[in-house]
């Protein structure tokens, strides 16, 4: 399976393509695509030129990024492994408080 990931133009934050073409901040809300549908989904995100600075496809399962770039994409998904108080991992922790 594939997911579309992007960096938001205004602040560079990591985004994913979610349902109905929306861009979401959490991987948990990302939509997974079959190989055949992935390129079209990517094109849809790349067309949002004032919303994103970059976008590309990653290998993913419902559990998270997989494959050769799994570590890099896990770090993008969560935040720096050396600063657990920063990035999406910290935002997720805040929400649980």
């Amino acid at each position, binding site marked *: 399976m594939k997911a579309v990931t992007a960096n938001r133009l205004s602040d*560079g934050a990591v985004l994913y393509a979610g349902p109905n073409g929306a861009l979401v901040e959490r991987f948990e809300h990302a939509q997974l695509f079959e190989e055949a549908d992935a390129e079209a989904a990517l094109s849809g995100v790349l067309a949002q030129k004032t919303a994103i600075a970059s976008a590309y496809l990653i290998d993913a399962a419902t559990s998270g990024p997989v494959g050769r770039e799994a570590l890099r994409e896990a770090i993008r998904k969560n935040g*720096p492994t050396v600063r657990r108080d920063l990035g999406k991992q910290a935002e997720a922790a805040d929400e649980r408080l």
Partner: protein
Amino acid sequence: MYRYDQYDETLVKERAAEFRGQVARRLSGDLSEEEFKPLRLMNGLYLQLHAYMLRIAIPYGSLSSAQLRRLAHIARKYDKGYGHFTTRQNIQFNWPALIDVPDILDDLAEVSMHAIQTSGNCIRNITSDPYAGAAAGEVDDPRIWSEVIRQWSSLHPEFSFLPRKFKIAVTASEEDRAAIKVHDIGLKLYRNEKGDRGFEVLVGGGLGRTPYIAETVRKFLPEKHLLSYLEAILRVYNQHGRRDNKYKARIKILVAADVEDFRRQVDEEWLKSDRERLDAPLSELLRIRRHFAPPRFETLDDESAALAAARGEYGEFDRWVATNARPHRQAGYAIVNISLKPIGKPPGDIAADQMEAVAELCERYSFDEARATHEQNLVLPHVKKDDLFAVWRGLDDAGLATANIGLISDIIACPGLDYCDLANARSIPVAQKIAERFADPDEAADIGELKIKISGCINACGHHHAGHIGILGVDKKGDEFYQITLGGSGADDASIGAITGRGFASGEVVGAISRLVEFYKENRKTGERFLDAYRRLGPDPFKEVLYVDASTV
């Protein structure tokens, strides 16, 4: 310190205003990302894994308390409360929003700072000796010449689109604290046998994919001809440097191909140039020199009774003085190194509160001067020995009194895969684990000078080639592995480390380093550094202990 003149002030403010307009056009869609990317890079703004990263130039590493306080303000208001000092005496912020960057640049301009030429294929921030103006034996203050080069190279129209980036470092001491031999151009100011001052000009050093130690292209260049000669080098490079292959585009490739031919071309270019027009006029040199007049040092005995008493009473302070303080040219003063390598923390990171603590100390005790070093530490260059205890107390309160300068836990590490879009592997966690393993200060002191340098990819921002022990993170089918190099140095005895063999899994690196250190301790001569023992014994016995019992791949 150098103060901007009206020209500098106008230039920096206009550049910030220009970038504000470019950001607005990007946000509105008038500029595409492809069009905008080179514009943001010209202003030091990268897009990394989690966010944008803004790299701010610190010319020759020199900072005032006002600048440190402004950096703290930026860290707090626009970022996440900290910054990261780099191996080129710059500072990076890891989380700025694009929409805030114009405001950040305005804030920087108010304290004579900017992010111009911190990226792109241009002449980057000029780096120098962090002990400039304080070290004994200096033939001149290298910041004067660094500032001359900064002014010449800022927005130089002919050299704004070079084949690749271009880095210049300047020193004026026998001891090289600026790693001049691994720069595109390294300049060493000295006096010849006649007593005249001039530069040894080294060209073609560099790390990255293809590391080289620089070649001496001119043994003695009278100082007054510095700019015309630099112009000749850059012209030859601009014309003949390869633009067809990014990996062969640095000047080191041109120099290494035929250094004699390169020297001939530079000399030809130089001799036909209009040197009178290109070289800095004496009046401007004198104007710049006045900005670097020595501070008003007090006339003091070199021995400080207060220092001796405090060292006798406080063991931790005594250790810190022995490790982090260095002799000063002026009797009764010392150079203070502030370690940004607390055990277990990311090398080079500093919190906003800590920036302010350093600002306070530099204003009160060091003539309002601080320096960033290429080893990712800070320096208070002019501290009275009588004040060392107070400075240490202030640093200790701020969590900045780690006594490990030059020791095994004073590790250079690039941001690596925790932040960097180019990285293949993480660097910071490896540095943290090694520092934690050697956290015992007595053990670290016994090991002595040992420079470990870690890069998360072949671009070598962590200078691993120049580490006594170098560590290079590589990706092997999605897993992090680490190649070890031995015998590198970025100092006077510069050398490129040799790869030992197969890489280690991340969990094996600390054990591998421990085996190297144990072997060194068992086989060193009295007072012999790790690097010298390696050079005496050769690579084979070190490789043997490195790979014994290791499940390497």
